[in-house]
């Protein structure tokens, strides 16, 4: 069963086509990542899923309903640009937004306090949003999104602008939600985060879907490279006839071989000129898959 189904959706803003004929299915209970660079159409797609605006063509189905607005109490949404009422206290904010999602005030306060306690904001329940640090603000925003215990959680660039500590808190919170059986759909241009968390991914570029599938399926369909950790000058690697491409970081390189070239052929030539500390045949990173897919796209 799918939590979200998008069929041939197109959205234009004037002459600009933000999303062009996109279809995707988000399986219930999964973590689904919409990936792509800035301007790829991720936010536009998410806003259409949330019912903030409608598609010009195609259809969106959320939790079996034709619009997220008709099931809004079962959906939680964290926008990319996060904002809260500055003059309200954290607990009042949780109560207010919980109320908009159909949670009774007393219950919203109870859940709000419990969530704030659990995610390290217990001392700040009566603090006004304007007096909170950016990190606390972002945590609070996410708590606002999950307070009504939505079946579907839609997060637009949830890791954007987070420091490492808050990044981990955000990740834990997302994984907690997944353990609670909720579907999580999030967009990001950070491939590393997506790679570690997502069951399914969908890659967008210039308003079009360029790839989608399960994480393992996507990786299986793309050959990996060879990882080298070395000492010496690896500039010659790019010149080797067996090598297609090199991502060289001075002492670390990801080398992609041409089709049918066995990795040991590279090892032999590398050992002649470099001191090799690590040699590993890897699966391709999501980043690599994305770059390759975009390059190969017509």
């Amino acid at each position, binding site marked *: 069963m799918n939590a979200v189904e998008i069929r041939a959706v197109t959205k234009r803003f004037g002459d600009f086509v933000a999303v062009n004929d996109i279809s995707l299915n988000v399986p219930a209970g999964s973590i689904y990542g919409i990936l792509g660079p800035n301007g790829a159409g991720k936010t536009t797609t998410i806003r259409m899923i949330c019912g903030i605006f409608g*598609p010009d063509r195609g259809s969106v189905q959320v939790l079996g309903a034709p619009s997220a607005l008709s099931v809004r109490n079962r959906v939680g949404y964290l926008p990319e640009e996060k904002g809260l009422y500055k003059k309200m206290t954290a607990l009042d904010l949780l109560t207010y937004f919980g109320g908009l999602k159909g949670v009774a005030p007393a219950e919203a306060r109870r859940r709000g306090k419990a969530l704030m306690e659990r995610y390290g904001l217990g001392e700040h329940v009566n603090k006004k949003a304007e007096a909170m640090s950016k990190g606390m603000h972002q945590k609070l925003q996410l708590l606002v999104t999950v307070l009504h215990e939505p079946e579907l959680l839609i997060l637009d660039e949830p890791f954007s602008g987070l420091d490492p500590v808050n990044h981990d808190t955000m990740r834990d919170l997302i994984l907690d939600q997944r353990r609670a059986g909720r579907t999580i759909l999030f967009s990001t241009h950070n491939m590393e985060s997506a790679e570690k968390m997502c069951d399914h991914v969908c890659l967008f570029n210039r308003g079009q879907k360029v790839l989608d599938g399960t994480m393992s399926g996507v990786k299986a369909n793309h050959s990996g490279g060879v990882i080298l950790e070395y000492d010496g000058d690896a500039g010659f690697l790019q010149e080797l006839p067996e090598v297609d491409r090199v991502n060289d970081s001075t002492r670390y390189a990801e080398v992609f071989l041409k089709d049918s070239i066995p990795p040991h052929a590279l090892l032999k030539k590398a050992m002649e000129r470099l001191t090799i500390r690590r040699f590993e045949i890897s699966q391709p990173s999501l980043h690599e898959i994305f770059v390759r897919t975009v390059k190969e796209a017509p």
Partner: protein
Amino acid sequence: MSRILLVALRDYRERVRSRGFIVTILIVPIMIVASVGVPMLLDRAAGPTYFALFDLPERWSEQLQDMINADEDVKDNLKIETTAPKSDAERQSMLEDLRNRVRTEKLYGIVAAETLEGGDRTASITTRTSGTNDGLRWLRRNLPTLVRVDRAGRLGLDPDQTRELYAPVDIKPYILSLADGKSKEASDTDRLAAFAPMIFTYLLWLTTFTLVQQLLMSTLEEKTNRTIEVILSSVSPMEFMAGKVTAGVLEGLTILAAWLGTLWLFAGYLSQHYLKGIDLTILFANKANLVFFSMYFALGFILFASMTVGLGSLCSTIRETQGLMTPVMVLMVVPILAMSFVGENPNSPIAVVMSYIPFFTPFLMMNRIAATPPPHWIEIVLATSVLLGAIFASVWAGAKLFRIGVLMYGKPPKIGEVIRLLRSPQSKTM
């Protein structure tokens, strides 16, 4: 609880807790109390005004003193002293002395007699400034009577008859009751009641104008700090806009209740303790006026607020709103310009026609209802129906622009583009 109500209550609570709200609540009563009370206090602190009568004919001085004693309004505040030099030398030094006293503010002015060519006598008043002192005004008003009586004597007319001829004439004002057709003498209170239409209209306009501006600021703030996107995943744009407008109506009614309550208390206190025979509370006596006042505030606010929220949502800064909001502001100013005329001529063709134009109806219909005679109830129903139709259109247009504009960033559209947006087909899901 309905989402509209939740949005409205949150907005209302935030607004009434703000410093701006407290200032708004206090500013009008403080200004009115200050504008009435401060001059009264200053007058009381200043004490009586002193004038010297310099070398005035003896009977002028006596008559002037009699006239002052007979006038309750000035007898405690206007004091005169008589000086009569016996020689030219004394005359010169006495005049110099009096002038020095005027310069040093010990004396307000000098009243002297002057002989014109042909022997006609008149009076002159010398003061430090040509101010608006009550005593000075009184002398300017009454000295001519003395001069005329003097002139009559020289012409051989009977001075007593002349004095009687120039005695103040009391033209009695009567007002005709619309209820029973009988007339009664108009009191100061009745004259004051004639200001009621203007007071109601001005308060209505001031509240609507102030709150529409506040609503615009609040919409811009929610748009620029991106709170709106979180909210729009929980409520529809229409619900959100309705909640905000409802909060504005509640805030406005709170402000108006506070203003009217304070003014009523102040008017009662002033009438009881300071104003003899004038009952200022007459301004608030007609309960129907208060009902219409509240109703027209709510309707007028909804009309202008929905336009403002719609247009404001297309912009990101207050500067950007100026181009789009100017026509709305111009529409709001017209009733204030017509307020005085409509209050005095409530059933003139211009007043009637203008009060049927929906943008002016809330203010000018209130103006006419508080005036005498008020419009027929059929007129009230018709004008209000036209207004309701306009509100429906304004809410529709405002909601459509809001849906489009609230997530639109960058350069705001021009008026022509706004019209195109209004004509564009409705977005599918909203």
